[in-house]
């Protein structure tokens, strides 16, 4: 398992992306799957900074990757505010322009582009997002 821990600042998103891209390539994902994992992680980390920490410079993001039986498993941990995932509604992506909300796409993209997304919240160990991308089994 590989891990990096970085201060929750938007300028660090590019470093997390590079770390994730390398891990996804090493896991053998194709270029579109690599891009989708990179995007999902970027969305999750942006949400941690914006919502869990309420802004930049309020805490770290710990990001780890490992290849397990389920596939490429990415875990993101923070020590900010927990939230209720069930309260986040999917955006209406068919709404006309005037009614199209400009927020709410992040979690939607994570759920669409990863095979599994789970949120856990613990007063002791903080908030944990676990995302899994299945690996195609070569015949």
């Amino acid at each position: 398992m590989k891990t990096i821990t970085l201060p929750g600042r938007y300028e660090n998103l590019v470093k997390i992306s590079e770390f994730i891209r390398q891990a996804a390539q090493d896991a053998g994902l194709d270029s579109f799957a690599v891009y989708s994992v990179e995007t999902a992680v970027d969305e999750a980390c942006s949400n941690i900074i914006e919502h869990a920490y309420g802004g930049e410079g309020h805490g770290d993001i710990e990001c780890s990757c490992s290849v397990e039986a389920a596939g490429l498993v990415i875990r993101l941990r923070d020590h900010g505010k927990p939230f209720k995932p069930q309260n986040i509604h999917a955006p209406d992506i068919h709404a006309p322009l005037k009614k199209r909300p400009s927020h709410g796409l992040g979690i939607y993209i994570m759920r669409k582009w990863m095979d599994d997304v789970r949120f856990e919240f613990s007063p002791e160990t903080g908030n944990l997002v676990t995302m899994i991308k299945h690996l195609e089994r070569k015949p």
Partner: protein
Amino acid sequence: METKVTSYKHCDVVKVSGRVDSATAPQFSESLQNITDQGRFKIILDFSSLDFISSAGLRVLINTQKTCKRYNRGEVVLTNLPPNIYAALDLSGFTTLFQIFDDVLTAVGNF
């Protein structure tokens, strides 16, 4: 991320390169707002060198489209979409909100 603006008589072409994420989206937004603040609302975005766009970048696109389309004074159109970028736009339901052209020349001809 970098943006390079080329102004034509009827429209502005903005070539966007690199990464548009939460760190760079404010800068992306500012460069588009510089154009709309001049009363110019026909904008062609050239994404040929765009490596990555997150929902923060998509938010800039939708807000700029809302500004440009108001009073039917113009619109934002997209060109040269790399496959990954197209997939992100399509997933988010953006391909119905923006006209997409294969290249800048065709897009300029459209205005």
